[in-house]
């Protein structure tokens, strides 16, 4: 008896239909074989299926069973074929039909329960695309798959339930999507109001959050760079629906959605340690997985101690930062992951950290400082829009000036302003397939960033005086555009451009 069960294979963010064909033959020695380029995890599926059925009081047939994963020339990976194989075996045994237009997906535990499996949302999307009406997934992954509308999602608890469903004795109710409770907890551990001083740096953070600009903070150890970065998620706007889905897909592929989890609504904030490998950062592997840059898609990638990252790792960032997506090519497959993130980096001004510190002496030689700076290449620095200094805060000055303390704005009120600026950008770029000012190309700048006369004069004067490159010139316009958006202005005023100029990269080398 031959049974066909539909499932799918993941390749990056794409899914590909896979037919699981199970043949239970009356002739031949009893056995259980899987063919069709099954890798180790799929091969082991045999043992899981056999044990799970036994532990669910379903007798495993003592026949010759052959499973074929078709098309047979594409490598199959992962544990998601457990359920379709088990369904095929059971249907063959019970001599019953497999539900039509249905996709099966899920890993089995030896006790017969179904485990949370990565990629549920992609599977549901694939089902919708293919016109499949039903998908059967582990119960813990059901809410994730239910994000996709137009497909009936059945959350299966265990194999016994599945068997009952096949025989028509048990009913499984389709899951309806339940939005995750909006967490009222703040998105970050620090509130901007808690950070004393650093007015300029906070303002730069606000601009970065509003326009999706990359930002570099330079300052002595302990001046508050990391704290500022950690407070950044608190002022980022919420993800819109489309963005949420993009992020959720990536997290689903990477297996980063917890059991029972669902749509991701807060912007990702990733801060990998500087010992990260190139593949860890940009993604890769035999079966290409998204790296940190993709996991921070639509969010923030924070690289603390920027200069400590291996040069090769940082250089690998160049193209993804520019393009917003990355294609990983391996001999077996080629996948493209989006990575439109805001890069936030922090660095010390020199190896000892005290260059330009008002009180402490720097103990580095000129050569050491130059070598330290050279670790980050020009092209990388050139891709960072906002350069801001985070000076040491003199606590004494605060005790004298109470007004300053009360001046500090809370993350919530900054977030509101940022949200408004993002809304303006959303409306502006509705037809352009971009979301933020930082993503603007030259043609967009011409179209959407109108400089008032004063602003234009100021910019050309600055271009002359500071010998700005073409890229820096355009970058300043983008930043000024965001500043104008924050102020709710249609055109870019002189003062907007003036402020933007404060965030241009500066020279620190002692002469």
């Amino acid at each position, binding site marked *: 008896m031959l049974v066909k069960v539909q499932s799918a294979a993941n390749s990056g963010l794409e899914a590909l239909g896979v037919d699981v064909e199970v043949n239970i033959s009356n002739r031949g020695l009893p056995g259980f074989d899987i063919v069709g380029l099954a890798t180790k995890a799929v091969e082991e599926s045999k043992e899981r299926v056999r044990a799970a059925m036994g532990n669910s009081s379903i007798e495993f047939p003592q026949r010759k069973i052959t499973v074929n994963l078709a098309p047979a020339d594409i490598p199959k990976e992962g544990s998601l074929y457990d359920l379709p194989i088990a369904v095929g075996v059971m249907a063959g045994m019970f001599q019953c039909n497999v539900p039509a237009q249905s996709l099966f997906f899920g890993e089995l535990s030896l006790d017969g329960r179904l485990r949370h499996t990565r990629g549920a949302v992609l599977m549901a999307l694939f089902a919708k695309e293919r016109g499949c009406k039903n998908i059967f997934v582990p119960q813990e992954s059901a809410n994730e798959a239910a994000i996709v509308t137009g497909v009936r999602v059945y959350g299966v608890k265990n194999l016994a339930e599945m068997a009952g469903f096949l025989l028509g004795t048990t009913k499984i109710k389709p899951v309806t999507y339940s939005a995750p409770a909006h967490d009222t907890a703040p998105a970050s551990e620090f509130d901007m109001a808690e950070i004393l001083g*650093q007015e*300029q740096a906070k303002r730069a953070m606000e601009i970065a959050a509003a326009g999706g600009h990359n930002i570099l903070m330079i300052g002595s150890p302990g001046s508050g760079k990391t704290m500022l970065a950690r407070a950044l998620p608190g002022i980022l706007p919420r993800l819109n629906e489309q963005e949420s889905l993009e992020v959720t897909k990536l997290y689903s592929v990477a297996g980063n959605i917890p059991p029972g989890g669902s749509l991701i609504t807060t912007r990702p904030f990733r801060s990998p340690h500087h010992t990260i490998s190139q593949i860890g950062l940009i993604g890769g592997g035999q079966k290409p997985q998204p790296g940190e840059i993709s996991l921070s898609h639509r969010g923030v990638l924070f690289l603390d101690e920027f200069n400590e990252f291996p040069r090769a790792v940082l250089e690998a960032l160049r193209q993804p930062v520019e393009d917003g997506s990355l294609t990983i090519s391996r001999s077996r497959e080629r996948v493209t992951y989006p990575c439109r993130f805001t890069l936030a980096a922090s660095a010390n001004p020199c190896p000892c950290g005290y260059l330009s510190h008002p009180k402490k002496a720097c103990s580095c030689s000129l050569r050491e400082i130059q070598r330290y700076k050279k670790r980050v290449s020009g092209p990388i620095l050139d891709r960072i829009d906002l350069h801001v200094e985070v*000076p040491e805060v003199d606590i004494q*000055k605060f005790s004298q000036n109470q007004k300053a303390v009360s001046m500090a704005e809370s993350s919530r009120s900054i977030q509101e302003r940022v949200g408004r600026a993002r809304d303006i950008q959303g409306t502006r770029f509705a037809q352009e397939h971009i979301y933020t000012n930082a993503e603007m190309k030259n043609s967009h700048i011409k179209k959407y960033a109108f400089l008032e006369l004063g602003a234009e004069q100021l910019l050309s004067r600055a271009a002359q005086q500071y010998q700005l490159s073409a890229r820096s010139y355009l970058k300043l316009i983008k930043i000024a555009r965001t500043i104008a958006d924050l102020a709710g202005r249609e055109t870019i005023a002189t*003062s907007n451009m*003036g402020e933007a*100029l404060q965030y241009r990269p500066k020279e620190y080398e002692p*002469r």
Partner: protein
Amino acid sequence: MEWNNETREGVGRTRGEVESRGVMTRVESGGVVAKRDKKYPVLLGGIKDAPEQLYYRGSWNSDIFKNCLAVVGTRRMTSYGRRVTDQIVGEVASRGITIVSGFMYGIDAQAHRAAIEAGGKTIAVMPCGIDLVHPAHQTDLHEDITDSGGLIVSEYQSTHPAAIWTFSRRNRIVAGLSQTILVVEAGEGSGALITANFAKKYGRKIMVIPNSIVSPVSRGVTQLLREGAAPVECAGDVLQHYGIIGFKREQKKPPIEEILEEVEGEVEKNIVRQLEKEAMEVDELARVLGINASDLGSALSLLQLGGYIREEQGMFYLCS
């Protein structure tokens, strides 16, 4: 004298490293003057361990050695150090005093530059063979010195590498050539103090530019003051020692009222008033003036581009 990081720096870990870092000078006029030569600087010849011969680049003119002021200081020059060096050394050099220094980056290099810019003469004493430039990245300055009629001298021939000991040997020549030595900024154990010690031994006048006690490069200066060095407030204090009196400080800086008239906007005016009192960083300005970083940033850019204020290492100054 203790060898700390600062004195050791630039010397390199091994000889080979230093050699590879020095770069050859271009071919130009030069030669060698022996101790017994008439052309040999008299003042230098008077010291006990005067070098047997001086190799030089540029055109030797004995007049250049008549009135010499050694200007030495830290490699870690602050913006204060740069400003006072430019101002005082510039004025002194413009009155015909030769500025002698050790060609190291920081105050030394700044002193050479200030002298050249003021149209004065300057002598750089190298710690390495006369055919090398050390530190290598200052090749431009090396050329500027000879082009402006100054001299590059060294007691070492051809490509003798710089080493820890050549730096302090070099300092004795700097002190030996000059009647007076001016220490601008010097941290604890700075190489400038070695030069000052030599100067003391040779009976030269030691002058210093006072500095803030919280500055990391003030300890050496304060130490010299305690030992009886003369504080310098303006170029006139230095020139007095060379018999140039009645020196009036030029009023280059426009009065604050003039700037205030030119500058538009109340925020900008307030910034100018505040910076006249003291240099500040941006966050402090925001606090003191009670304006947000956004408005302040745009005002600062306008003032910067207008040439009224300057930013150095995060601090804003009123242009002088």
